[in-house]
């Protein structure tokens, strides 16, 4: 009987291996990428136990479930396989070990079951997940009983054990189906993805958020079919365990816009499988029906394919889903790949976006406004313009927001503060083109490159110590994305500069007696650049009371202004900034402090009554003490 059990474990392992090869064969149809396998595989334990665990433990019950379920299942099965050695097979102690491991797995199965009882939470999927605890429990329970039987009589072969054997076989078959065609493949796909991750810099507390440059001479640009994705990305889609954390974090989903990151990843999985799928989580809100047709080389986007185009343009590229994903999936990279295919190969962008892109190509500015008008808001302050070949300490990059008179007030406050601190700085004036952020997020890499090349040449023709900007989107592009194209400078957000000036004593602040202030983290400053402390230090020094919204810091909610969402004619049940302002109101904030022209415009667009919107520079200027 012991030998039968051992054969069962080996058979299960062999079948799992076959199914894994099937998965790998499918992934290999993706675009080849160079993977540092040895370093990657060596890093897997650490990436799993530290980085993945760090995300999983935000929901402690999920972490507690995995220890007995995964540990017991793997440990018990391996222990059974090792019992192929006669010495172990004959040892009561070994069978005791097997029994303990399977008991743990059985406990894990009970914990798995509890996640969906009495009702399946909206963010979790049903479907095959509903009988997963049954299969796991049958295998673990059968294994436990058999191990106990062997413990009682190591040489035994009692016919009484036939029933638990059948139970274990049934469970093993169930687990195999769960692995080959169901969610349990996340164990294998996740391991491969952790080893071959597209952004290894994210592990160990690092940050890697810059979009990768696209080779504009390649035959196919971006992703139109599953085979256009890097094979590692295909593996990452299979790694999704449908835990729904992305969907809970997604601002577009919350506003009823036609995007659910979880459904998107599952649709991409279905596209690789070719046909309609068995997804049973919450759907993409309000999305028009699609034909659910796919295939490795078939188009993914379109009413006649797998994903409706509306889904693609609802994304604000805020990376909240990426931040929450325990499998470290790169949703935004997938969306931008798909957008690149639509924009560059098919010209299929929204009319509003098409107009902005045309103006960026023709006038180097998404609003089609004269570049000389960018500094109009600063006209009264007489900021020097840095000519080609000129030199200064700080180059102030104004960004697209400068055309907006409201944001001009922020820039005026910043300039006044820099003057008070006695800094030497200048602007580019007419020579400042758009940095291309919007084009890049919309997938139009060609237009981005056009603008980036011009901006880099302009900046490289001038000498300065650092660049300061009040626009986190420009900050991200200049700091993180231009280096790949030949632009290397020190780039600072204005809150970091002001924080430096306050802590060095160059600016002295007295906290004013203000009603509660809540800081709204811009996605491109917080999640994209990890800067969440300096703005808070400034507010603490400038304002009386500061409150925190439930979602703040790296887990803050987007204002809805990123990724070209506002110009992409996105339909929804609510507006994202309305939701965000309601969150600020819920914690009693009377002022929402911002640090981004996009957030300013989006949050000020919320109808009254709502908290007042002030940029940190304005609040700091009000609190500054002039000697």
């Amino acid at each position, binding site marked *: 009987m012991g030998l039968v059990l051992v054969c069962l474990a080996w058979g299960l392992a062999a079948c799992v291996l076959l199914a894994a090869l099937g998965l790998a064969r499918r992934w290999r149809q993706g675009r080849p990428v160079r993977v540092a396998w040895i370093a990657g595989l060596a890093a897997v334990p650490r990436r799993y136990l530290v980085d993945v665990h760090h995300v999983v433990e935000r929901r402690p019950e999920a972490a507690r479930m995995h220890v007995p379920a995964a540990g017991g299942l793997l440990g018990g099965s391996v222990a059974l396989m090792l019992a192929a050695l006669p010495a172990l097979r004959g040892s009561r102690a070994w069978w005791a070990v097997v029994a303990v491991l399977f008991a743990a797995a059985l406990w894990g199965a009970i914990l798995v079951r509890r996640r969906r009882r009495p009702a399946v939470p909206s963010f979790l999927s049903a479907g095959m997940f509903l009988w997963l605890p049954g299969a796991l429990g049958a295998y673990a329970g059968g294994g436990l009983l058999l191990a106990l039987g062997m413990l009682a009589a190591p040489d035994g072969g009692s016919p009484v054990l036939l029933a638990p054997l059948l139970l274990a076989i049934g469970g093993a078959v169930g687990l195999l189906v769960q692995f080959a065609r169901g969610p349990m493949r996340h164990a294998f796909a996740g391991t491969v993805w952790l080893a071959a991750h597209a952004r290894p810099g994210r592990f160990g507390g690092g940050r890697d958020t810059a979009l990768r440059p696209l080779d*504009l001479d390649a035959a196919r*640009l971006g992703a139109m079919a599953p085979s256009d994705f890097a094979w590692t990305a295909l593996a990452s889609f299979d790694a999704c365990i449908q835990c729904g954390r992305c969907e809970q974090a997604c601002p577009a989903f919350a506003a009823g816009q036609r995007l659910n990151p979880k459904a998107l990843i599952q649709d991409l999985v279905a596209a690789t499988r070719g046909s309609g799928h068995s997804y049973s989580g919450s759907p993409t809100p309000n999305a028009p029906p699609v034909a659910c047709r796919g295939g490795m080389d078939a188009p993914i986007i379109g009413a006649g394919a797998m994903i409706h185009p509306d889904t693609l343009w609802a994304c604000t590229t805020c990376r909240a889903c990426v931040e929450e994903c325990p499998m470290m999936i790169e949703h935004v990279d997938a969306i931008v790949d798909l957008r690149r295919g639509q*924009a*560059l*190969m*098919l*010209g*299929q*962008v929204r009319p509003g976006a*098409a107009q902005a*892109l*045309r103006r960026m*190509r*023709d*006038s*180097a*500015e998404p609003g*089609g*406004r*004269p*570049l000389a008008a960018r500094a109009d808001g600063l006209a009264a302050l007489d900021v020097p313009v840095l000519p080609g070949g000129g030199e200064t300490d700080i180059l102030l990059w104004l960004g697209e927001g400068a055309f907006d008179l409201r944001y001009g007030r922020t820039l005026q406050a910043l300039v006044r503060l820099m003057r008070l601190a006695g800094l030497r700085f200048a602007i580019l004036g007419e020579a400042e083109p758009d940095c291309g952020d919007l084009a890049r997020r919309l997938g*139009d890499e*060609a237009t981005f490159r056009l603008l980036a090349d011009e901006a880099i040449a302009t900046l490289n023709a001038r000498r300065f110590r650092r660049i300061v900007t009040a626009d986190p989107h420009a900050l991200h592009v200049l700091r993180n994305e231009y280096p790949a194209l030949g632009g290397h400078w020190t780039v600072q957000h204005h809150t970091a500069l002001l924080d430096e000036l306050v802590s060095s004593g160059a600016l002295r602040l007295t906290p004013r007696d203000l009603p509660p202030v809540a800081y709204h983290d811009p996605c491109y400053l917080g999640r994209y650049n990890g800067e969440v402390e300096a703005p808070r230090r400034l507010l603490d020094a400038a304002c009386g009371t500061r409150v925190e919204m439930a979602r703040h810091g790296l887990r803050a909610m987007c204002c809805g202004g990123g990724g070209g969402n506002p110009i992409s004619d996105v339909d929804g049940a609510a507006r994202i900034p309305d939701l965000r302002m309601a969150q600020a109101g819920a914690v009693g904030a009377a002022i929402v402090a911002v640090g981004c022209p996009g957030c300013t415009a989006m949050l000020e667009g919320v109808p009254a009554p709502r908290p007042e919107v002030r940029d940190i520079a304005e609040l700091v200027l009000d609190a500054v003490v002039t000697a």
Partner: protein
Amino acid sequence: MMATALRAVVLLSAGIDPVSGRPAPVGTEIRAIGLARALGARAIGLHAGLPVPVLREYAGYGLADIVCLDGAGADPVTALARAILSGGLFAEGPVDLVLAGRRASGGADSGLLPYAVAERLGWPIVADVAAAQRATPAGPSPELEIEQARPRGARRTARVAGPCVLSVHEVAACVPDFVFAQARAAVLRTMPAGIDGSPPLAGGAEERAYRRRPRLIAAAAQASGGRVLVDPAPQDAARAIIDHLRALGVLPPPAGS
């Protein structure tokens, strides 16, 4: 019987963006490409001059084939007319339709050019085209039903038989999608213009400062003074606006009338 596709030539200029002064495709010429596509025409771009990079962008808007007339600078009208009449542009037959933008953008282009080319060709010209469709979609005749854009949003219909010249208005809604992959793959062919000598107009033109001229308002747009409604009910106000737009021809007449 299937209608044969019209053979259209879109006149392209090396435009500049009026805001930034950078090389850019001209909006009305982009719409001319869109109009050719809306008519289901086979279109070739024709540029009097050497191939310049900005021409590739027109290709991005859906013009796969662009012909540049080398040496046309001396007399672009003659060069263009000769190329159009030469029969060398389309293998299938003569040109049915010439499409152009209605006014200059500020680059080396001219709003007068479509008229001059039409005159040289001896073809009729319809200016300020907002939309067009084939009068008999199934027939072989290249007769077109044209909608002309008039001031204040009014529209006027016209009918013209090809071959003809159309100058496209900037309100035409037919802006094609810009596809980078098409721009990248564009073929810019260069043909000799067969013109030599200096421009005939050189020195003959007089330059004058811009002066605002009294507006010539077409009869169609001379709507009466309108009605003043003080604090009307929303329904009455909406009704009055719709009636006014119908009177201008912006909206179609009510269903069933």
